[in-house]
């Protein structure tokens, strides 16, 4: 019931953005940021695998939204617009990183080490904690090895909880294509995880070869 009441009286994202567009309402924009900053940061973390870069990207996404407030048309959901802007920034960043060869496996491994310091844990026993960290690192690496168009579908559906049709709207592709990509991504993840697990258990120092043509 309190949810219902708050939903009845709360201002929608679109109303807030309308105020931003028409009146440059800084308070409305702050409300939008407080609602969406965390989800957008999470998206960027999953897409780039890097916390600090993700925070910068999320900031850039909001800056871009504010800069383009006059161009915003309330024909669709604000969130769709925001996801799209953030994803495009992630794509640009990944392309830049690829050009700088930051996406090399060495770099990934180094990032993994630094990132593992941030991994949340429920303070289990040290052995279990180490095992959890290893598994998390494995999953992160596998996800980062997926092609971007597969990764974004997995991130939006699995981690961000968007429905398949909503992902279709964000990416401007048919819902069926989203589902096909999701199935293919899960299949590739299964193979990658098996391989990475095998490689790790045989020789932890061995670098993981690129398994898939991205």
């Amino acid at each position, binding site marked *: 019931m309190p949810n219902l009441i708050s939903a009845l009286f709360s201002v929608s994202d679109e109303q807030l953005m309308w105020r931003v567009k028409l009146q440059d309402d800084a308070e409305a924009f702050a409300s939008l940021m407080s609602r969406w900053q965390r989800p957008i940061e999470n998206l960027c973390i999953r897409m780039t695998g890097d916390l600090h870069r993700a925070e910068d990207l999320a900031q850039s996404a909001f800056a871009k939204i504010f800069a383009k407030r006059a161009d915003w048309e309330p024909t669709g959901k604000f969130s769709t617009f925001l996801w799209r802007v953030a994803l495009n920034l992630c794509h640009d960043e990944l392309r830049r990183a690829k050009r700088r060869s930051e996406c090399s496996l060495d770099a990934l491994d180094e990032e993994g080490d630094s990132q593992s310091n941030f991994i949340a844990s429920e303070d289990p026993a040290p052995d279990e904690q180490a095992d959890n960290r290893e*598994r998390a690192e494995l999953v992160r690496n596998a996800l980062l090895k997926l092609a971007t168009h597969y990764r974004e579908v997995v991130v939006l559906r699995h*981690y961000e909880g968007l429905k*398949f049709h909503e992902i279709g709207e964000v990416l401007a592709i048919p819902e*069926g294509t989203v589902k*096909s990509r999701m199935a*293919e991504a899960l299949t590739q993840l*299964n193979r990658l995880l098996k391989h990475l697990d095998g490689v790790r258990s045989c020789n932890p120092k061995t670098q993981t070869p690129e398994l898939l043509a991205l």
Partner: protein
Amino acid sequence: MQSQDSNTGTAGAVKHPNSSEWMSFLYDECAPEQRHELDAHLAACPTCAEQVKMWRGSINTLDEWPLPARRRARPRWMPVLKWAAAAAVVLAIGIAVGRQTSTAQAEVAALKSSIADLTAAVEREHNRNLSNNIAVLANANTEAMQLLGDYARLQQQQRAVDQQVIKTALQSFDLRLGRVRSDLQTVAVNTEAGFEATHQGLAQLASYSIPAQQ
């Protein structure tokens, strides 16, 4: 792509659901009836069961990469809380020091005595107020009774006047009624005489005959 799409369509007599349908199934986005059908198919088809199990495995593995723990912004009420805690500590110390340094027994006795005086004074004041209030109430009651008597007398006088007026009006009405009746009788007599004359005239007219011509 080695997903369920390779099994789509009829293979012999069995029609396998495609990967899109399985994605809706796995992420709980399909209609209940479709879910029943897919459940039934899954129970009967080892190929699809294997495929779905693999996808489920990948989905479960994704949850092993938790989000990095981020530093939380310190809430704005923290300084307030800090000062409140400091005030509480100072208060507690003050009370403790006060207890240690006071001549407790004498103070308590003096306090008790002053409380007793205060109670007596309050009681006296209360009783005085009560008797005053009772007197005021009695006066008000007498006045109200007097007013009610006056009102009843006025009502009675008014009723007598009304009755007199009605009686006079009725008498006037009777008089006019008598006059109207007498007028009506005169009209009736005149009308009867008129009828009689007309009757005679008609009888004469009926008995009139044209004299024969010479």
